[in-house]
């Protein structure tokens, strides 16, 4: 059984205006792996993430989650398996209260009410947001919004977590708490980020995208030690790997 595998084969995608965002991306991510997706602005990271649970439909190539190719008929199952955390929590938190928002996914899965309640409590407890349940999302701080956004996804018990820039706009302490929270999630993680120190902390494997193609794919430490590669991809060594 290998239904937590994420496989992308020769994925191509062009935006409606003709701009090609992905031009033949392939990789395979195994269960339990924690993989970072890095690259310059506009390299195609967010576009790629949106393909992993069918928000965008590829122009060519395929995405396989577990043993199924992602198609219209497998979409509901895939969306339950792949939890997606968007970059801007305001996009993710759309319900009147935090509780309603965390309950949104489980209710849509058709779970009975007691189960929904239990999942909401558990998800909020995991992110340390028990006290926030009754608050409206617009009254939360940036860090709280981010934690709740994760809780909304955890409540659906996904086996693959996909995150877009999870640590942007967080103060150092919230960032650290957030990293610890992610570390506790044992299933597969795919994280797109410019925060290379976080990548170094969390991901053993890194994929570099450059102009819609995979430029490098390997152990994070090896990739971040290759100055020439980093330079070419508009990146630089994480601060903790820089000699002072």
């Amino acid at each position, binding site marked *: 059984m290998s239904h937590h595998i994420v496989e992308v084969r020769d994925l191509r995608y062009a935006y409606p205006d003709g701009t090609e965002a992905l031009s033949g991306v392939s990789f395979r991510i195994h269960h339990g792996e924690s993989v970072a997706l890095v690259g310059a602005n506009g390299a195609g990271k967010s576009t790629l993430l*949106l393909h992993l*649970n069918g*928000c965008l439909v590829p122009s060519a190539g395929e995405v396989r989650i577990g043993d199924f190719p992602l198609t219209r008929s497998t979409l*509901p199952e895939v*969306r*339950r398996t792949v*939890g*997606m955390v*968007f970059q*801007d929590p*305001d*996009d*993710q938190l*759309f*319900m*009147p*209260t935090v*509780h*309603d928002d965390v*309950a*949104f*996914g489980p*209710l*849509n*899965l058709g779970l009975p*009410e007691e189960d*929904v*309640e239990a999942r909401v409590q558990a998800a909020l407890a995991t992110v340390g947001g028990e006290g926030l349940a*009754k608050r*409206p*999302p*617009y*009254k939360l701080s940036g860090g709280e919004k981010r934690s709740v956004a994760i809780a*909304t*996804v955890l409540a*659906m018990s996904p086996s693959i977590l996909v995150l877009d820039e999870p640590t942007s706009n967080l103060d150092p302490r919230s960032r650290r708490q957030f990293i610890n929270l992610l570390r506790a999630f044992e299933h597969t993680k795919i994280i797109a980020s410019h925060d290379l120190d976080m990548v170094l902390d969390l991901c053993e494997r890194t994929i570099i995208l450059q102009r819609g193609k995979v430029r490098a794919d390997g152990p994070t430490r090896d990739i971040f030690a290759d100055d020439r590669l980093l330079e070419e991809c508009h990146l630089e060594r994480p601060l903790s790997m820089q000699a002072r």
Partner: protein
Amino acid sequence: MDIERTLFEIGALDQMALQDTPLHRLDPRTKLITAMGFILTVVSFGRYELAALLPLTLYPVALAAMGDLPAGYLLRKLLIASPFALFVGMFNPLLDRTPLLFIGSVAVSGGWISFLSILTRFCLTVSAALILVGSTGFSPVCMALGRLGMPRIFAAQLLFLYRYIFVLTEEGLRMVRARNLRSFGNKGTGVRIYGHMLGQLLLRTMDRAQRIHQAMLCRGFDGEVRLVRHCRFTSTDVAFIAGWFVYFGLARAFNLPQILGGVVTRIMA
């Protein structure tokens, strides 16, 4: 600054809804039905009826007291919205000059009476709506509307409107700030620039709407917004609705101030 303040005040109404008073504990549907009954009663009065409306002030006053809602805040909100009513009725005193009433030797024209009647009705209906939201909260009101048969799509729209009004105003505010910092004197503040800014805001809003929709789809959205809320009618709810409807009916059917006046003069005589 003004926008920020207004935003805060909208939030304040929601804050009031978090209290725990006998009024707050009623089922949202109860309060909604009663408020709708009240508004219908108020607007059903004829244009020259003024005195007959007065007993209905009991409703907002009693509810504000019962729900511990600050009168000052409600009055301020009424004042902010009052220009609308003023404009609607402004020309009545000029157009309708038939004398209807004499106070001593001063004739009061029908226009003035209908103008005052419009203002009274405005104050009554708007305060009833404010009290409804202030004692229930915006989203429970939407939900109650949905449960009472309003099409689901409208209920969802109202929910989203309320959720994103804060995000949208903040975005607008940031744009205004950015413009102000780079416009000097009167340059850069013209109507044309406003047009561009509004267009920009619209585009951003559409982008955001798309992202929100994606986020909803990712969590299994299938066209229905589900909420877990346990609300049920209790005997208190029934009594509340029945009591107020009887009172509205009485106030509508009989001119209570007139009857009261008659009784008083008879006693005095």
